[in-house]
C-alpha cells in the first residue's frame, strides 16, 4: 500500500504544515512516511507545495509524478497538477478561490468552499484544516482524532488555544463527501 498526496497552494496557506500533520499522524500510526517540500521556481511570494507519501513498506522516491490525491488550495495549483493525478484519484478543491471547474473526468472531485467555512468558523487560518478534513473523510487512512492529537503535540504553545477551532474546521471539512465521477 502506498498513497501519494500533493498539497499545493500559495505560501502562507498552511500547505506545509497540513502536510506535516499528515506525516506525524502516519508515523504514529505505524506507517512509513515522507514529507517533501518544494517551493517552485519563484523565490518569494510564490507557490508552495509538499508531497506526503504514506506506505506500509520502505518508501522509494519521495517525489512523485502522479499522485493519487491532490489537495489544491488555489488555482495555479490546480492548473499545475490536475493532469498529473492518477486516474481514479482524488482532487480536493478549495472552491472558494478556484474559479474554474475541473476538466478531468476520470478522477474524483471534492469541492470544498474552504475559505468560506474557515471564515465562518472565525479564523481564516483554518482553511488548510478544512481541506485536510475533507481529505481524511475521503481517504480513510487516518482518523481526525489522530490529526487532533498531532495538533496537540506539535502546535506551538501559543497556538494551542486554537485547537477547538481546528477541530471544528476538520469536522466541517470532513462533511464533504465524495461526489461520484
Amino acid at each position, binding site marked *: 500500500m502506498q498513497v501519494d498526496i500533493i498539497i499545493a497552494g500559495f505560501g502562507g496557506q498552511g500547505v506545509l504544515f497540513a502536510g*506535516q500533520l499528515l*506525516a*506525524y499522524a502516519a*508515523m504514529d500510526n505505524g506507517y*512509513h*512516511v*515522507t*514529507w*517533501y*517540500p*518544494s517551493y517552485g*521556481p519563484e523565490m518569494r511570494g510564490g507557490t508552495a507545495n509538499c508531497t506526503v507519501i504514506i506506505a506500509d513498506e*520502505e*518508501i*522509494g*522516491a*519521495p*517525489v*512523485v*509524478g*502522479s499522485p493519487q490525491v491532490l489537495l489544491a488550495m488555489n488555482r495555479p495549483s490546480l492548473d499545475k497538477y490536475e493532469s498529473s493525478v492518477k486516474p481514479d484519484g482524488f482532487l480536493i478543491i478549495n472552491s472558494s478561490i478556484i474559479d474554474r471547474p475541473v476538466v478531468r473526468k476520470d478522477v474524483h472531485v471534492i469541492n470544498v468552499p474552504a475559505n468560506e467555512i474557515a471564515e465562518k468558523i472565525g479564523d481564516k487560518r483554518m482553511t488548510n484544516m478544512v481541506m485536510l478534513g475533507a481529505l481524511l473523510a475521503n481517504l480513510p487512512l487516518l482518523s481526525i482524532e489522530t490529526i487532533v492529537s498531532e495538533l496537540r503535540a506539535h502546535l506551538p504553545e501559543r497556538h494551542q488555544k486554537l485547537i477547538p477551532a481546528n477541530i471544528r474546521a476538520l469536522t466541517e471539512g470532513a462533511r464533504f463527501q465524495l461526489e461520484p465521477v
Partner: protein
Amino acid sequence: MAKELLKGNVAIAEAAVRYGLEAYFGYPITPQTEMLEYLSKRMPELGRVFVQAESELGAVNMVYGAACTGARVMTSSSSPGISLMMEGLSYIAGTELPAVLVDVMRGGPGLGNIAPSQQDYNQITHGGGHGDYYPIVLAPASIQEAIDYIGLAFDLSEKYRSLAVLLIDGSLGQMMEPAELPEMQPVRAAYPHWAARGATGRGRIVHTSIYLNPIEQEKTNFRILSRWREVQANEVRFKEYYLDDAEYAIIAFGTAGRVALSAVRAARAAGIKVGLLRPITLAPFPGNAVRELAKRVQSLLVVEMNNGQMVDDVLANIHDQTPVEFYGRPGGNVPLADEILAEIERIVKGKLTLNGHPRDRWLDRMLTKS
C-alpha cells in the same frame, strides 16, 4: 530511542551533536542553511563552538584550525560554497587531518538553482582540490542513513586521518521522514597524540602541508595513498535490493537510488527481474561489487541526478561485455520512478550496444524527447 519525524538538515545536525561534535563552522547557503541555523542554537546551549564564518573560505579554514587540535569538527555547505572550500580541503588532506564536510548538492554549474542534484559527484569523489588526495564519501539515501553515516563519517575520518564527506542532494536536506537519533554521546576526553593543543610538558607539534623537498612530498603522497588503500580494503559499503535473481540491475546512489527502488518495485510487480545496487561509499567506490554484478546480469542501468558522472566509475569497473545504459536528470530535477521504469522497460526490450558511451545515447534520447 523512538522514531521522530525529522527534517534531513536538522537530523544531521542533531546527530552530529550527539556523536560528539565539538565545533561547527559554516556559512548560510540553501538548501543546507537549516543545519547552520539549528546549530547556531544548539551548540551554544551545550557550551560547544558555533561560528558563522565570513564565507565558506573562512569556514573551511576554521575547520582546518580546529582539526589541528584534534577536535571533532565539521562544516556544511552546498555546491558553490563547496567549490570555495577546495583549497582548504586540499590543505586539510595534505596535512593528514580528520574533518567532516556535509555537502547538500544543488543544481549547477554556477549559481544554478536550489533544487536537489547530484552534479558534484566528480568534484567530491575525484578531487576538486589540487594534488593527489582521497576523501571518504558517504551517500545516504534516507534520513535514518544520514543520521547513521554522519557518525560513521566522524569515525572513519578519525581512523584514517582523512577528510570524510557526507554527500546528499537538496531533497534529503529538505524532506522529513521518521528516523531515530542516537543517544547523546559524551564529547571526547582524550585527544590523539598528534593534536596541537599547546606544548605543555612536551616538544612542539607542527601541522603543515608544505614539503619543499619533492622527495618528502612524495613520501607524504605515498603515505596518504597507502592509507587510502586501507580504506578501499576495509570500508566499501553498498546496499543490494532484489539482486538475487536479477537479470537487470540499476546502480544509483542517494535520492536517485531510492527513486530507483520505487521503479524496481514497479518493474517487479510487472514481472521484470530487476534489482538495485546502491553504493553507500561513493569513495571508495564498490567497484568489485559492480564488477561481479555486471557478470550476472544482462545489462546495467545507471541513474543519476546529473549528466552522468558515477557512470564513468561504473564503466571503469566493468571489464566484461555487459551493456551499460544511463539515465540522468541534471539541473535540479529529481527523476520520477515512472521515468526510470520506462528506462527499465527499454533495456528489457534489448538491442543494447557496447559501443559508444551511454551518456551519448542518453543525451540523444533526451534531446529528441524535448
